């Protein structure tokens, strides 16, 4: 695999006009900028779930794992724990990350796992042809709910905040620069960074349903309470960084500076340790 190109040769099968193109574009643009900041391209590792969003895995020229529906979030945590030097990022759909993979998402936030999660929020299970997701507004008439869904949706940002995530932002695929900047910030952030990207699936939702409603947060909250208020008050069309704070990350609490791959413990060291334990018995 030659990482010099940012995109693979795989034929793109997204619908023309799909919001996923912007996310792909933003990630591609963010990589050289991260390189300027000293992050090696080969150290960026991704996983993706299953869904239209996940096809980004086929198109982005980065190493990683095309995982199972919902499991990308657990797989990426395994990769991070095994080699904390890597910058890890997972691409999840709103069904993938907030439904089938919901528990993994919550626990990644709870642990403040040092990773980035991009949630492609298009309000449908797009790949399986448009059923409602855990984030879809009440009343959506999809093929599994011809009379309209009657469940209230999750507020993804609220759940992540409460679960323990430390970088929480909302972007829109129609705001490419903001999206790119936020992706860079999220990848640089040490801890669980979560970007909800409002991404119209044009086969089910028109851009006009979103375009004119978007607005940016006037003041970015500076602490948990403010973030909580801002996330609850501002509906899903408000963009910006709602929370950005510091907290110990999982792998450092687990083993400090250690890295099981790059700092392998030699047999000699293991024996020394064992001897110490035995001598103290």
């Amino acid at each position, binding site marked *: 695999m030659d990482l010099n190109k940012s995109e693979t040769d795989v034929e793109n099968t997204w619908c023309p006009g799909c919001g996923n193109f912007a996310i792909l574009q933003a990630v591609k643009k963010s990589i050289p900028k991260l390189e300027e900041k000293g992050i090696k391209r080969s150290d960026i590792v991704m996983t993706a779930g*299953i869904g239209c969003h996940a096809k980004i895995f086929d198109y982005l020229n980065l190493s990683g794992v*095309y995982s*199972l*529906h*919902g499991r990308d979030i657990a797989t990426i945590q395994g990769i991070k724990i095994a080699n904390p030097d890597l910058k890890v990022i997972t691409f999840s759909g709103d069904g993938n990350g907030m*439904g*089938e993979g*919901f528990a993994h998402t919550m626990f990644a936030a709870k642990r403040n796992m040092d990773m980035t999660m991009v949630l492609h929020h298009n309000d449908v*299970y797009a*790949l*399986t*042809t448009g*059923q*409602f997701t*855990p984030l879809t507004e009440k009343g959506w008439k999809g*093929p*599994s*709910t*011809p*009379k309209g*869904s009657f469940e209230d949706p999750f507020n993804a940002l609220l759940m992540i905040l409460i679960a323990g995530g430390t970088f929480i932002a909302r972007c829109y695929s129609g705001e490419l620069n903001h999206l790119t900047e936020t992706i860079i910030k999220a990848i640089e952030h040490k801890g669980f960074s979560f970007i909800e990207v409002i991404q119209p699936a044009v086969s089910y939702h028109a851009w006009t349903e979103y375009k004119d409603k978007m607005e940016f947060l006037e003041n970015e909250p500076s602490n948990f309470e403010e973030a909580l208020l801002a996330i609850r008050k501002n509906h899903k069309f408000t963009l910006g960084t709602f929370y950005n704070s510091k907290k110990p990350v999982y792998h450092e609490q687990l083993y400090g500076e250690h890295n099981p791959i790059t700092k392998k413990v030699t047999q000699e060291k293991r024996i020394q340790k064992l001897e110490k334990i035995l001598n103290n018995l």
Partner: protein
Amino acid sequence: MSKAKEFVQKKETKIIKGNVAAAYAAKSARVQVISAYPITPQTTVVEKLSEFVDGGLMPGTQYIRVESEHSVMASVIGASIAGTRTFTATSGQGLFYMNEMIHWAAGTRLPIVTTIASRGAAPPWNIWADFSDVINARDTGWMSAFCATHQEIYDEILMSYKVCEDHDVLLPKFVAYGGFILSHTSKPVILEDQDLVDQYLPPLPDEKGWPQIFIDPDRPMMHGNLIMPSGFYSEFRMKIQDTLMKSKEKIKVATKEFEKIFGRSYGNGLVEEYHMDDADVGIIIYGDLALQMEQAIDDLREEGYKVGMTKLRHYRPFPTEDIIEVAKKVEVLGVMDRGTAFGSPTGGPVSSDVLASLYNTGITTKILPMMAGIGGREVNVEQQKEEIKTLIKMKETGELPDNLIHGTLWDGILEVK
């Protein structure tokens, strides 16, 4: 006719997809609780059922839309224990994810019917016909059937409720058919008169009740408690095996009765033979490839070859006795799998079971384990004719083909560098 009666479908023929036939069967069976999660190629089964339920065409049916397949099976288990006729459908990864609850459903003896639009297992990602998904659930205590036609999907679901809900059986069942090949193509399907279906099927649980398993406020009971090794755990397990073996007879009876009422026959229910009686070379095959194989057999018969085939309709319980009889009829018998059993004697699930069935029977028929159509790889009639000709050559020369991989013929396999 009253308006309510209008809702109830009359016998009619509709040109529909295999998935839609499955949905119609659930409707005809008057299932009371459906729970499902979409997955390709199953999705249109649950979409059609949503349409029926939300459109008022299935009065009395509740549809629970949950967040994962694990929750699907868990909620269907709850609904079944609470005393309703239940239905769900899935494919590949969805079935794998259900696995924990699948064991639970059989262990507690619930007559849940689940259709599987079969697809290959990931990775690499694959959504096309391959029975590895349902075969993976082999040792769970569920019965499993393969369908070869659209009509058979509809019919087999009805027959399955009949067998599953028999008080002497009370076990769940999978009804599997090839993803896309049957799920997404359209064929005429006869949808039966509701009164006839009602006559064929047992009364709904709440109309009759299943004393063994129901949670009934008048008769408190617990399910799933811890049993110490000295308790009845072994006996529960033995009973599942015992019941599965005895269910063969129930399947035969249900198939016969189905034929009597609806006029369509499926062999003895467990297997269906095609030109086997005077054949000297035969093949055991299942799913949609069996339907196409009939054409290959017809063509070869026209060319003068005495060939036949046996369609395997049930995988669990495995029809050992029928397989022995089939093997006795021919000199060479191919066993064609579309699904894998890695590390087994042949690599093919059914061929391994066929070999095991013939142990100690003294039968000298030569068996050739075969594989084709894995992950939806196309298999055409010409190819199937060649497969049979390989068997004919084996009969003529007495020798095995020289391109076997660990004793098995992997037909249509590409060269791997």
